[in-house]
């Protein structure tokens, strides 16, 4: 009889029971010997424990998603005494995000980089940045021939500027490469990472022809005062050590109908973001009326990021 029951037990229920039992037992066990565990408090330990056994984001039910969000919010409250709000808004109907970059207008102020770092809670310790701006000599057209480390007054005579970030390819090589399906393309075109499912093998990084991915070599650090508390599970929530991350076109903003932080910050209006399926959108106007081009078209990755010249 007992064996019959255990055979019927699915993986999910097994993990759930295992996690719940241990989670209930471990605080008691820990409280018995020390009162404070390795992770600061017994409650945090129990939450971390349950987090360890949680499933892939795409396999979770709505209820499970709510639970993990609660756990993550509570963990931040315990560790940093900070109230964060993690959103799980899904893709909207009839939306496909696209981006266009006006090469003529950009003057290399890098306000977009600054806004991105703040908005997406990027690691300040290793100076992680999703956006790179390359200073290009006239006559060049590919950022790999430009200077991505310029440090002087801009704009510089005889130069123009090109911004590069994740291009949210429609045929993304990174997704194909990932051995655990921890990164995928959402129906609205965003390529996202389930940070907690990533094992940190960095195969996606080798597969990306645009250098669009960043790895957390150390535990990322953001000063408490600067943490953006409006977060998305697949977006700017705090990452941990050993996880891959990338630009998501500010999923926490775009899925709420707002433009990305880089677009908002750009002082020259060089950045255009919008819904490719909306015939009245600015991005559609750019694609229909300007001469546009994309990087490394020959690879067939089909990026949703176009450059154009006024």
């Amino acid at each position, binding site marked *: 009889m007992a064996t019959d029951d255990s055979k019927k037990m699915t993986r999910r229920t097994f993990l759930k029971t295992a996690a719940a039992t241990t989670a209930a037992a471990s605080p008691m066990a820990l409280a018995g010997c020390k009162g404070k565990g390795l992770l600061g408090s017994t409650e945090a330990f129990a939450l971390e424990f349950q987090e360890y056994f949680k499933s892939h984001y795409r396999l979770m039910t709505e209820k499970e998603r709510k639970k993990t969000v609660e756990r993550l919010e509570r963990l931040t409250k315990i560790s940093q005494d900070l109230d964060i709000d993690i959103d799980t808004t899904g893709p909207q109907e009839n939306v496909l995000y696209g981006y266009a970059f006006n090469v003529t207008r950009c003057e290399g102020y890098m306000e977009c980089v600054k806004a991105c770092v703040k908005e997406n809670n990027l690691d300040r310790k290793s100076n992680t940045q999703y956006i790179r701006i390359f200073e290009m000599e006239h006559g060049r057209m590919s950022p*790999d021939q430009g200077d991505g480390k310029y440090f002087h007054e801009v704009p510089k005579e005889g130069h123009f500027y090109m911004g590069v970030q994740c291009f949210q390819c429609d045929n993304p090589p990174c997704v194909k490469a990932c*051995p655990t399906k921890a990164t995928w393309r959402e129906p609205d075109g965003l390529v996202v990472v389930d940070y907690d499912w990533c*094992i*940190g*093998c960095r*195969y996606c990084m*080798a597969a990306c022809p645009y250098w669009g991915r960043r790895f957390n*070599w150390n535990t990322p650090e953001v000063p408490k005062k600067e943490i953006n508390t409006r977060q998305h599970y697949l977006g700017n929530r705090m990452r941990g050590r*050993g996880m891959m991350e990338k630009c998501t076109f500010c999923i926490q903003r775009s899925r709420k109908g707002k433009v990305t932080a880089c677009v908002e910050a750009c002082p020259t209006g060089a950045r255009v973001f919008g819904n490719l399926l909306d015939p009245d959108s600015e991005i559609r106007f750019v694609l229909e009326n300007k001469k546009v081009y994309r990087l490394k078209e020959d690879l067939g990755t089909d990026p949703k990021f176009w450059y154009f010249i006024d």
Partner: protein
Amino acid sequence: MKKNTLLTNLFSFVKDALIWNLSGSLLYQVFLCGLVCLMLTGVYGYVIQFRTGLAATNMSNIVSWGFYISNFTFLVGVAAAAVMLILPSYVFKDKDLHKVVIIGEVVAVGALVMCMTFVFVDLGRPLQFWHLIPGIGQLNFPSSLLSWDIIVLNGYLALNALVPAYIVFCHYRGKEPVGKYYKPFVFLSIGWAVAIHMVTAFLYQGLPARPFWNNPLMGPRFLASAFAAGPAIICLVLHIVNAATDYKIDTKIFNKLRIIIVSAAIINLLMLFSEIFKEFYFPTHHSLSAVYLFFGLDGHDSLVPWIWTAISINLLGTVILAVNPFKKNQIFLLPALVLLIVGIWIEKGIGLIVPGLVPSPMGEIISYAPSSVELMITCGVVGLGMFVITVLLKPALIIEQRYEQERSG
């Protein structure tokens, strides 16, 4: 009743294996202690890496794979090379090679253990490795070549561990192994050996983002270099076995292995030449990685002395082995074997992985050299591999020798 004796046999088999492993000359004990020290160095390094993250290595967002993956790539070749003994001894019924096939298989097991450990220590989140296991995790099969690699490496480990284990256990009980129980797996393992190295090559070859790797010659060249370096390592192990144990190895065997090594090494050099021709006859934007490797770019030339050393000693080793100036005593070929192994290790390890990643897709050029933590962990993994080979080989050879004597005597 029958099952019971099998169990008792298995128990005494394990017990005897343990005793044989722990007993031995003073030199053997010192050797074992040395291996344990190496492994402890690795554990120390890994503790540091585990606490600080992969920031403890010199890898970065540009060189995102380094020394670990380099060594992994080389060792997959060593593992695959066992097939060069298995094929002639089981398929062509070569009596001489049949005597040493067990040694080849054990070296393959050791190499595979090292491969998997190298991949494991390279993971950013090793505790989450269960996400790969189908059933409780999600394996991206067949889309991801890494998932293919995980499957073929584990399968090959199983084949190379279980087939010899069965044969040795039969011999331990003084029985002849039953062909139909293990022969199908032997034939499977021959194809599988080619598969592990082709799949590992495809891992790199399948990335259009990296022109240096995105090259159809990669797979065949991996095989050629593997069938040179792998048998060379097996040859070294045979020399050690010959000198340190009563299990005597015939000169004929060394000669046969030498011919295998030389043929593979020559094919490897031909393919290398073909690659160099393609990169430098009409250099394109895609040749920058090769320029970086062979001549350096923007003052970053840390790999240059390595690759030229590799090519020189590769050539020298191949020539010595081909000419074979010491016909009588094969032991004088040892330096040539070492030259060839080191040459292929550099060329296929760090000389393959790092230039694939530099210049980055955004044109950035940096230098990479392993950090002390990476070196310590690498020592540990190599120690582990040698330990595995030693503890598997020692009882296996004792059993084989006994069985031979019983049959002849």
